[in-house]
């Protein structure tokens, strides 16, 4: 019997097993007394170091699926195993700890803290982990995304592309095992978008992180090693 939060695999299996595994996941929202099934019987797994794109039309359940995979939301039924840990039944704070330990995020609208400088935004995940040398590492990452000289600028003083580069640096700051990107280039022009994509894949390769991208963009999806297509809440 496996309890929530316990390692799902034996130590021997841990290295070879999937970093993310979904089994018969369903998600139902209740709104105004009506039930709306957003995800139906989702089953898939992602191997370590893999790059996966989840695509599909609007309303197909991509973002909901991403939220459940990353432990932001709970499945109505089924199980999610992230880095060998069963998420079912974990409390919100336990899932927060898990996210801090293993997960990185990139958002469509960047989601930088408006009251923090670029440097401080990158430092936050490391500070949450009491990691030493957070400042040095954050500066290194900003250097990598070409924003070392803008380290003390606030988000409002940065362009969209620059904000997303800060967001990339933040996502990799904690050396996550798994990185989730929700439409990472959706708010950017084509040229900037391409630069961000290139940077994302390069950082990912260097860090050996598993990457899960939700996107509309077939071109971005084609750059991943695997594409999961969603329609009407199901995997096609």
């Amino acid at each position: 019997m496996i309890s929530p939060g316990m390692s799902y695999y034996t130590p021997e299996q841990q290295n070879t097993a999937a970093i993310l595994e979904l089994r018969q996941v369903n998600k139902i929202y209740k709104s105004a007394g009506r039930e709306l099934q957003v995800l139906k019987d989702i089953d898939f797994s992602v191997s370590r170091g893999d790059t996966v794109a989840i695509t599909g039309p609007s309303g197909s359940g991509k973002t909901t699926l991403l939220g459940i995979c990353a432990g932001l939301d709970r499945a109505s039924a089924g199980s999610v195993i992230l880095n060998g840990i069963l998420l079912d039944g974990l409390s919100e704070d336990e899932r927060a700890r898990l996210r801090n330990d293993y997960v990185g995020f990139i958002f469509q609208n960047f989601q930088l803290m408006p009251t923090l400088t670029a440097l401080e935004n990158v430092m936050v995940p490391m500070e949450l982990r009491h990691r030493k040398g957070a400042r040095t590492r954050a500066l290194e990452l900003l250097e990598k995304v070409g924003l070392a000289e803008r380290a003390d600028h606030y988000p409002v003083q940065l362009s969209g592309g620059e904000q997303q580069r800060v967001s990339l640096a933040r996502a990799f700051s904690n050396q996550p095992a798994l990185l989730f990107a929700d439409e990472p280039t959706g708010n950017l022009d084509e040229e900037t978008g391409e630069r961000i994509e290139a940077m994302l894949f390069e950082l990912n390769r260097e860090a050996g992180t598993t990457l899960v991208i939700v996107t509309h963009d077939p071109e971005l999806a084609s750059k991943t090693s695997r594409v999961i297509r969603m329609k009407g809440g199901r995997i096609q």
Partner: protein
Amino acid sequence: MMAWLFKMAWRDSRRNLGRLFLFIAAVVMGIAALVAVTAFRDNLSRDIDTQAMELTGADLVLDGNSPPGKGTNALMDTLGEERSFERSFASMIYFVKDGGSRLVQVRALQGNYPYYGAIETTPAKAAKEFRDSSRSALVDQTLMLQYGAQVGDSIKVGALNFLIRGALHKVPGQTGISSTVAPVVYIPLQFLEETGLTKIGSRIKYRYYIKFANPSQVAAVVKRLEKDLDKYGLDAETVASRKEDTGRSFRDVNRFMSLSGFVALLLGCIGVGSAVHVYIREKLESIATLRCMGLKARQAFWIFMIQIGVIGLTGAILGCLLGTGLQYLLPYVLKDLLPVEMNMRLSWPAIGQGLALGLLVSILFSLPSLLMVRHVSPLNAMRISFEPAQRRRDPLLWLVYLLILLFILGFTALQIGGWQEAGIFTGSIVVAFLLLYGLSRLLTWLLRRLLPERTGYLWRQGFANLYRPQNQTMVLMVSVGLSAAFIGLLFFVQQVLIKRVTIAGGPDQPNTVLFDIQTEQRDAVAALTRKYKLPVLSQVPVITVRIDEINGVRASNLAKADSVAVEKHTRLKAAPGAPKQEGGGRRGGFQEPPGRAFNGELRVTFQRKLTSAEKVLRGVWRGDADDGRIRVSLEENYARRIHVDVGDSIVFNVQGVMIGTVVGSIREVNWARMQTNFRVVFPTGVLEEAPQFHVLMTRVPDSKVSAAFQADVVRTFPNVSVIDLKLVLRVLDELLGKIGFVIRFMAGFSMVTGWIVLVSAVLVSHAQRNREQMLLTTLGASRRQLLVITAVEYFFLGMVATGAGMMLAVTGAWGLSRYVFQAGFEPSPLAISGFFMVISAIVMLTGILSGGRTWKRK
């Protein structure tokens, strides 16, 4: 982790410091008002404590209205180690050189009083020397200045001339204002009889000042002598009781000021509550992002809790600084009313209380919004509009609401000194809150359903802003409504109080009163008045009586029970200084020390008809006692005070003769009318033969006639006193002006706080609108169109919230006037409409001006 939370709190707040300080501006004002009032109270109480011995001038003061008999003298011989004796009364004196005459309080003194403190005179030795065998007097220095008199001149007191030996600066226990109304003249007691002013009917007070070798015995002595003192009609005053009385007379001013300060603080609380609510709502996305990165719910909570705590503490510190500055202003304004010399010092308890309260209210009133932070889902970072932060049914939230209620209840009880009043006050706030909340819900519901499709776009958009998602209707409605209600309430109550202490004047009102007229002098005095072509506006007899029994219960027993009951009831009454009416009538029943209503002297009259200032409320007035039953009429407040009504029986002791009466009617008396009014009126045919004096009222056209008339009265009837009401009115006017200033100042303080809350509530809510306005601009909306949309939204909201607030204010002011201040309340339609327009306009203008960046954009 705590260090990191502090770091994050600082990082998060540093870009919002300006806004956060606006949030606490209201707290600063509230704390400042409270600290000023508390510090003033502390200082006053300390100064009364340290100067109490100088207020009485002796360890024990006994006073009565009868000349000392054998028993009294024998009793005095047993008391203390040293005694002084004083007889005092009101009389006219005549300045021989100047020819002017003036009503003064003559004090004929024998002995070495005061034993503590000093009678301050120029020259200083005069205070001792006037008591030697020569006929000398000490005269109030202001009076000497007024009549151009100097040391060495003479005054005539009754039939005797006295040499002015010194100018009197200060008498123990006398306030600046009382010396102006009744200036003191000291003469040696040994010459009193020769002045001829001690005839029966003169109202003389007999006072014994006693010094004990061991002052700690005084309380025991007074207790032991209780029965004797009762028997000889003597009241005892000790240093301790004087301290208590002095403190009590200032408690009312303090209560009003404390209440104003508390209202200012409550407004600050509303400000904090609504501002933090909006502040947190704007932070939801950031919190959600942090939650994605692994921030725990309680960590998120602490990041904002630290910010609010630090800002609250800063506000409290600023408030304490401002309040400490203000405390020095109050004694300056009130100096003529103060019985003691104020030595203002920093009051650390007041500062400590201010700091603690500032921090407490900032946190407590932020908690409902802060708790929301714990429920922010990380999903909001991705789909903010899809799944907003939910409050759910958080049990902690209900606990916080309970704590807020308990805080308001507890603190109100502390400020106004009674749980019942505090309960009513807190209940009223809850009802007001619920009404405003319900109104905001109703408004959004109605607008959503009833706004016609055909309404022009700009109006529709403006109104729609009131019910669309992310609207601030509820927060603004509650904060603007409550602020308007508090501002209005304080204004109306202030009007009631100021009206209460204002005396009606007018061309037909009397301005000169002649009293102590003996029955045999009555017609002659009236003739003299007419000789000067002055009207005799009224001439009434005055008889001094005491209550002996009410419904068979002895007055002394009722007085004892009353002392306990009055302590509970003398709360929250108006500022002191309600004019004392000639003829013995005091306004209402709550203006005197406990028990006095039952065992004190009453001045009554008899008449056949009621005057135009009197109206029978219950029972029937009958002007004679022909059927053998004596039906007296009682003034309504006095009747309530002594717990009697129509049909009850009262036995009066009319200078030794017991007269049984029945309460035949209860009257309403217009005390504001300048005429002789009485608490108790007898019918004719009962008191005609009782020892009495008469009061005559007239109107003198100018000061020249007044001086000649007064001089003639003093010459012809030395025992008759003349009060120049113009002078008294002017002094009272100054005094009331000062009290009015304090009331206005404190109320104004709260009003400013309310305005800050109002402005900050509108300002913070506008952040929600900025993004939409930019979007509309992008879509081609002109600045004029944006202006109309904003004006419609805020004007409508301001109008409804202010309207509701005004209704609450009028209801509250009516309740307070009727049940607490026991005064009539007639709201001025002009003031209500003025407030309504001004506050609505402020809300609208603040809404428009807060979008300054949008209007400047071309």
